[in-house]
């Protein structure tokens, strides 16, 4: 074998990244096991790495990889069948042989069938409720996003073996639970789709507002989540909440460049330089929101959050923000998806629309909410509202409490700064 140039290797890796989801989806349909399918896809990659440096990258590399993997899949199924036959000691080998060749024909056809449905099945299985959340996230990024375990590990600040083990365990769980490779229907589909949306939103949020570490944002992860959301919209175009989520992510991502200062410190929404908001992503977000609404999904939790984000996106200056509408949207969201965090956001909006006293009254109702006991933003919000009311001592205590609770170093710095200006008796800039 000749020494391959790094360029060829990079090209092969790029081709594999483009093709791997489709490969794994098509192969899972044949072998009915995501873990085996991924191994077969990896085998095809190894074959490409061995051959392409000498033969060159084929004109249709996707078809080459699929063809190679398909042969191996058929071998795998045949081996499995032979094994099964031996175990069961079936006498009528001829009959089984005929059945096996029929299956092989079916499999060959299956691979040419609608790739989109197989990809959607792969999305659903990666986010299956039988898996714990971390496993769903890792598997989705691995199988659908085409990320390596190393890339996932770096994105989530955990070790590579941890991620690798999560993925291995997830595949074993799916196999042991014999989770079918299917498109869920009826009420089950609603619940399963909700799990998919949640996983994508989690990935985005981990990138958008890193819960740990020194950086406020990890933009690569946001981009991965955005692409996954757009892929989902393409695969399930009739699902309003898929478009709702996509709208929400596009709109939030549009502010990415504006929410970090030159020194890496976070800049809060109302202080952001709106000229830095990405108008292309805003337009895409508004269009996705419109689609969600056209599909009758205006009251979906993601569409509602997107509608709130759209209120900010449409305001040219912070002072132009339609806070009354935002407060009304939060009120609807609180009915559709009751949660103390939504109530807290509603308190902020009401505080802007009707004044800090009205906002504080709502926020104070959450003081004994167990779910928010350790939630830094409750104290950050109360601190802001108290400061606006001139109650600086109470504001300082709340902001310091918030600083003590956040795990993000950048955010802690910002909160302590605001606490210090309260201590000096000056209302902190938001």
């Amino acid at each position, binding site marked *: 074998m000749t020494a391959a140039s790094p360029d060829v290797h990079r090209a092969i890796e790029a081709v594999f*990244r483009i093709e791997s989801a489709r490969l794994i989806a098509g192969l899972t349909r044949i072998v009915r096991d995501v873990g085996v399918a991924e191994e077969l896809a990896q085998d095809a990659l190894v074959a490409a790495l061995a051959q392409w440096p000498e033969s060159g990258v084929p004109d249709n590399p996707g078809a080459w990889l699929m063809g190679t993997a398909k042969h191996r899949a058929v071998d795998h199924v045949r081996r499995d069948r032979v094994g099964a036959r031996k175990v069961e000691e079936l006498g009528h080998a001829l009959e089984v042989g005929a059945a096996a060749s029929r299956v092989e024909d079916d499999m060959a056809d299956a691979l040419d069938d609608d790739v989109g449905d197989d990809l959607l099945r792969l999305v659903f299985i990666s986010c299956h409720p039988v898996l714990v959340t971390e496993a769903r996230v890792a598997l989705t990024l691995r199988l659908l996003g085409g990320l390596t375990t190393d890339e996932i590990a770096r994105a989530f600040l955990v070790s590579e073996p941890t991620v690798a083990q999560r993925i291995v365990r997830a595949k074993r769980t799916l196999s042991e639970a014999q989770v079918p490779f299917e498109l869920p229907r009826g009420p089950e589909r609603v619940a399963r789709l909700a799990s998919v949306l949640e996983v994508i939103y989690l990935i985005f949020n981990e990138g958008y507002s890193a819960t740990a570490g020194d950086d406020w944002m990890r933009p690569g992860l946001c981009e991965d989540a955005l692409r996954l959301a757009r892929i989902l919209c393409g695969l399930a175009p009739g699902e309003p909440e898929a478009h709702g989520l996509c709208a929400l992510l596009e709109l939030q991502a549009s502010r990415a460049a504006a929410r970090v200062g030159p020194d890496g410190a976070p800049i809060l929404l109302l202080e952001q330089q709106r000229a830095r908001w990405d108008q292309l992503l805003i337009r895409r977000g508004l269009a996705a929101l419109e689609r969600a609404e056209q599909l009758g999904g205006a009251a979906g939790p993601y569409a509602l959050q997107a509608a709130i984000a759209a209120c900010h996106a449409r305001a040219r200056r912070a002072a132009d923000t339609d806070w009354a509408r935002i407060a009304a949207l939060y009120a609807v969201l609180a009915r559709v998806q009751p949660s103390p965090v939504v109530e807290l956001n509603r308190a902020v909006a009401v505080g802007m629309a009707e004044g800090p006293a009205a906002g504080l009254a709502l926020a104070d109702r959450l003081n004994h909410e167990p779910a928010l006991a350790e939630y830094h933003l409750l104290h950050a919000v109360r601190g802001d509202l108290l400061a606006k009311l001139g109650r600086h001592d109470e504001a300082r205590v709340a902001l310091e409490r918030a600083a003590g609770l956040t795990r993000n170093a950048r955010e802690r710095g910002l909160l302590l700064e605001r606490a210090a200006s309260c201590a000096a008796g000056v209302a902190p800039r938001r």
Partner: protein
Amino acid sequence: MRFMVLVKASKDSEAGVMPSEQLLTAMTKFNEELAGSGALLAGEGLHPSSRGVRIHFDAGKRNVTDGPFAETKELLAGFWLVQMKSLPECVEFFKRAPMLPGDCLEIRKVFEADDFGPALTPELRAAEDKLRAQVDKRS
């Protein structure tokens, strides 16, 4: 990261020859794949340069000249704006674009704030933000 994929003009594109139905079908399919992968942000075709103008900037002077412009190879016929994980991913994707023999695509990475490095000081960035805000107010 974002890339702009520039479609270089050809004799046909400059002559305003419309693509065949077959080519349009192939292009639609390619664009669907691009959108399906979550990578496509925007993409447009451009009219021939005969319908365009150029603004030349000289010291204190602006000269506007009408198209067409001569150097076909330096002209553009369209573009895609895409979000990709890496340049090789972008290259491998666009090697599949249904172009004609003699066609050429040029891939350029779009500047993002971090690309400016230390040259973009906080002061410069603040000034740029102020400028952008002014432009925003006027538009």
